[in-house]
């Protein structure tokens, strides 16, 4: 099936998403957490069409060592595994997890998270910048999860991050894109790819987010916690494509008054 975005790409209107010198076909990235079972996870991820799939680094459960890691279910040749530093509350901790992830993984990409608050899971931008600088120096390709704050985004770009990932709304909240203006501003001002990460709840959220012109979206809970994750993965794939297409097509201007669509001339007396 030729997708709409593939059609546009054929016409030279869109280019693949390129991060850290690597090109990816899909603008949708998905997480692997919170699924009820591995089979559903794999089917949902396959259906989403995502190339980039995030994973977390955690202790092996020594009482259940036969429990396979998530790698057992996802072919690293087929999916680009992006290790995250989720759950880290300091720069040092995030750097430690990033190094373990690089060792466990197959690339030097890291989705850097430094969390500042347990209730909101909002980023600690001071720790984030510190960790980003260390990891860039260490040779990592850093994708930094951050607030929808322009100044932090600019500083992350200056620090050498390969992509900046502002949130749509808090992680796992499903509240959708709360601040389209800020996300648009970040996209307009940054040279590196801007991938919205966290907060998307349903397909319309994904579509509206892509309509802002951002380069991609990363989501996990919206798919994993849907009643039918595989169907939602398909919806998200279409929504991301629709939003991208609408952005590239260029929307009509907003008007505060009505403008008739049918001719005003030729009406009967």
């Amino acid at each position, binding site marked *: 099936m030729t997708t709409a975005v593939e059609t546009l790409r054929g016409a030279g209107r869109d280019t693949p998403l390129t991060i850290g010198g690597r090109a990816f076909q899909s603008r949708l990235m998905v997480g692997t957490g919170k699924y009820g079972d591995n089979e559903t996870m794999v089917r949902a991820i396959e259906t989403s069409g995502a190339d980039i799939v995030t994973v*977390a*680094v955690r202790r092996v459960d020594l009482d259940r060592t036969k429990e396979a890691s998530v790698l057992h279910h996802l072919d690293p040749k087929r999916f680009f595994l992006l290790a995250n530093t989720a759950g880290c509350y300091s720069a040092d901790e995030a750097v430690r997890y990033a190094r373990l992830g690089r060792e466990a993984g197959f690339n030097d990409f890291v989705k850097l998270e430094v969390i500042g608050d347990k209730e909101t899971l909002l980023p600690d931008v001071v720790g984030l910048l510190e960790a980003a600088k260390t990891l860039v120096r260490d040779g990592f390709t850093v994708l930094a999860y951050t607030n929808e704050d322009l100044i932090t985004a600019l500083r992350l770009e200056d620090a050498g991050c390969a992509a900046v990932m502002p949130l749509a709304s808090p992680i796992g909240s499903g509240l959708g894109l709360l601040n389209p203006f800020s996300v648009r501003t970040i996209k307009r001002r940054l040279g590196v790819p801007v991938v919205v990460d966290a907060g998307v709840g349903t397909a319309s959220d994904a579509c509206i987010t892509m309509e802002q012109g951002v380069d991609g979206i990363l989501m996990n809970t919206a798919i994993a916690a849907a009643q039918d994750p595989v169907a939602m993965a398909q919806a998200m794939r279409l929504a991301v494509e629709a939003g991208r297409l609408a952005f590239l097509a260029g929307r009509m201007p907003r008007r505060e008054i009505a403008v008739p669509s049918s001719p005003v001339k030729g009406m009967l007396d």
Partner: protein
Amino acid sequence: MNASIDVVVNGEPRAVTPGQTLLELLGTLGLDPRTVVVEHNRRIVRRPALGDVTVAAGDAIELVHFVGGG
């Protein structure tokens, strides 16, 4: 001198044989070295070196892998 020594593996105290290497420790835990990353006293030990590093009393060892996450 065959008394066991105490180390900490993934946060839990564990008695191991003195002179045991990290590779041997993985074996006693039933872990395939290809599926875990080993951190020994905060330093990552790469797979080829696991058989060269012996554990000492009080060592902190972390054994991690990829799990589902967002």
